């Protein structure tokens, strides 16, 4: 008898002929997650198992952050002997009270009892040994799973995991990461679909400080825990902002800035093999996120722009940020100080002709090129933040 982690996967089940490809990625990602903790990982009978790790709790916490994993259960693995299974079941349910149900599942058809009989037999034994428990087959408080496969597996606890698709099965995309609450959540949502996400951050020293940059890197590191770390491309953006401020109409300032951010992000994305951009925009949240403004931002690039938060309310976004662990970092101060560049009356219905006219007033191509050339790339997994 030994302890193992039973790892269930969700959506990958829906795949048809290319399912082995997705599974292979998933197993590799689970392996990478637990390797530093000494866990051994294998796939058997549409389950992933983790064994031989000294710290099972830490392992479970890591595995539940692997995209594609639906849930994780600490389980015991033992010989397929009914008497020892019953004893182990009694042991697992000792000290519990309330209602319970045994879920039997016999994959190995040579085992003498079928799924129903197995559940009934074990349920009876548990009831005899623990009078504080009652059976409730509809809404049990405790679910005891017993599976008969190459071995017998028993588990009670089921830790929900992040779900989604295995990282690396969905291509690569570039996230515009600001340091606020929304953009990390947007990145998370797309990572959840199996996409490898890199980040681009626009740095306006001296209008934003070294501490603000540290904060963004910290956010990226927190997001990177759901993958294998994150690349962050920091773009020097001050010169462009100053030029826009000096030469272009004030009320278009924010949308013009967004358009240049998108252009720069697109170039950085292409240079890094990314096929799409990700932003944390939510329809109508601020002046630059009206439908008219978004149409104008989109028009600046020839690349799909994913906006997973488009229909979410700020409070819903905050809930996700809290759940994924980026909220506390997002609300640190040191946010940008550049209200200097914020128009007092930003245009909420910009027209593309006006924007193009304004952009002709600056040497946009040169400034874009310079910004791209000035990119500094950080690897969050190499940083202590």
């Amino acid at each position: 008898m030994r302890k193992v982690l039973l790892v269930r996967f969700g959506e990958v089940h829906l795949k048809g002929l290319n399912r082995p490809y997705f599974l292979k990625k998933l197993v590799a990602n689970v392996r990478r997650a637990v390797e530093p903790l000494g866990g051994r990982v294998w796939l058997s009978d549409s389950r992933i198992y983790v064994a031989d790790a000294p710290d099972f709790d830490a392992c479970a916490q890591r595995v539940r952050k692997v995209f594609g994993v639906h849930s994780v259960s600490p389980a015991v693995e033992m010989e397929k002997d009914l008497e020892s299974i019953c004893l182990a079941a009694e042991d697992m349910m000792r000290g519990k009270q309330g209602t319970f149900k045994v879920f039997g599942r016999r994959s190995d058809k040579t085992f003498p009892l079928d799924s129903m009989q197995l559940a009934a037999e074990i349920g009876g034994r548990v009831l005899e040994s623990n009078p504080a428990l009652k059976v409730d087959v509809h809404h049990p408080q405790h679910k005891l799973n017993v599976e008969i496969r190459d071995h017998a597996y028993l588990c009670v606890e089921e830790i929900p995991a992040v779900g989604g698709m295995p990282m690396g099965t969905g291509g690569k995309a570039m996230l515009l990461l600001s340091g606020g609450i929304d953009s990390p959540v947007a990145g998370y949502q797309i990572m959840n679909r199996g996409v490898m996400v890199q980040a681009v951050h626009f740095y306006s020293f001296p209008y934003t400080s070294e501490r603000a940059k540290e904060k963004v890197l910290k956010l990226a590191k927190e997001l990177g825990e759901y993958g294998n770390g994150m690349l962050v491309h920091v773009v020097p953006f001050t010169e462009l902002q100053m030029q826009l401020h000096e030469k272009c109409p004030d009320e278009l300032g924010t949308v013009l800035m967004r358009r240049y951010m998108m252009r720069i992000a697109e170039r950085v994305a292409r240079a890094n093999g990314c096929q799409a951009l990700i932003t944390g925009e939510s329809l109508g949240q601020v002046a630059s996120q009206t439908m008219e403004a978004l149409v104008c931002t989109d028009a600046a690039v020839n690349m799909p722009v994913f906006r997973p938060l488009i229909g979410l309310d700020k409070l819903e976004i905050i809930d996700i940020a809290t759940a994924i662990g980026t909220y506390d970092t997002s609300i640190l101060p040191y946010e940008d100080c550049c209200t200097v560049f914020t128009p007092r009356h930003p245009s909420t219905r910009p027209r593309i002709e006006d924007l193009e006219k304004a952009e002709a007033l600056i040497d946009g191509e040169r400034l874009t090129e310079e910004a791209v050339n000035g990119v500094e790339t950080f690897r969050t997994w190499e940083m202590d933040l």
Partner: protein
Amino acid sequence: MIAYLDNSATTQSSIEVVEAMEQALREEYFNPSSLYAPAMRAEKAMNACRNEIRQALHTPSGQVVFTSGGTEANNLAIIGSVSAMHGPQRILVSQTEHPSVLGACEALEAAGHTVIRFPVDRQGQPVWETVEGAMREGVSLLSCMQVNNETGAMPDLARLSAMLRSLCPGALFHVDGVQGFLRVPMQASLADLYTLSGHKIHGPKGVGALWIRSGVRLKPRALGGGQEGGLRSGTENTPGIIGLGAAIRAMPGNAADVLAARKALLLGEIRSRIPDVRINGPLPEDAAPHILNLTFPGVRGEVLLHALEEAGVYVSTGSACSSKKRKLSPVLLAMGVPANDCEGALRFSLSPHTSEEEILYAAEQAGKAYELLKRFRRK
């Protein structure tokens, strides 16, 4: 080139201090409470430092208790003295005190005492009617800083002391001297409790002291082995205390004059480049000689700070700035500085070791950065 003009935040340890501490760490590592001879050497070194402090305060008497720094000494002075009194007390402090004083006062308020916070005028001087009014109703502790950390304002301690002695005989007067010690002369005769810190005078961080007039009763905050006359238990930080002693000895006797000359140079150089710069707080000649708080109209203090940082000039701002929430300096606001000026405020703070080159360089860079940044105002 680096110009470090943030000496009120902290200072670089001087060579004398580093050497004295290195020797203390290597050789004088004994616990002063131990019974053998080398341990007594450590105790003697600590006592020598206590004497240095008394000398600097022009007094032969009083107890010197070493602490972890200014905050702990302020906490001990305020909470320790009031806790040793019987029943609810009235405490008088200025609105512009350091957070370690205001925080201690809040704790006392929560414990049922009354705290009266008197305002100051634009020069940083107490509003005397309020002070007198409060004293006439009786107070048992007055706490006031020797030098304001943001503006360099120096409240008239002699007048405060005289007023307290005549209106509230028996009341205690605590002076927070963290920003003033050895840069502005201090007479212990004015006060009953005096706080100082090591790292503002080129000593190490993590060490400070509280001077206590003989006969003043305090209730200790750190309990245990009874070190420091029972007022501050815990094995003494001998290397830090030896470092503090070295820092005091290394401070030039004419520090105030040197500082005043450097500050005048800095202000003159900045003014010649930026004529519309404004001084926050008292006139430079009425303020402490090492602190200069300036507003650069039309430019956010924090933005200018980072632009200077890029050029290797380090200063500080009184007000943290963020696009979401603007936090203006309560000290500047209390001194009647308009909100707009608070946003553009930068504090330059000097040390006797600040060189003329540093000052000239800083002024030149401030001029350049201001010239560039003032073009970008919110439209």
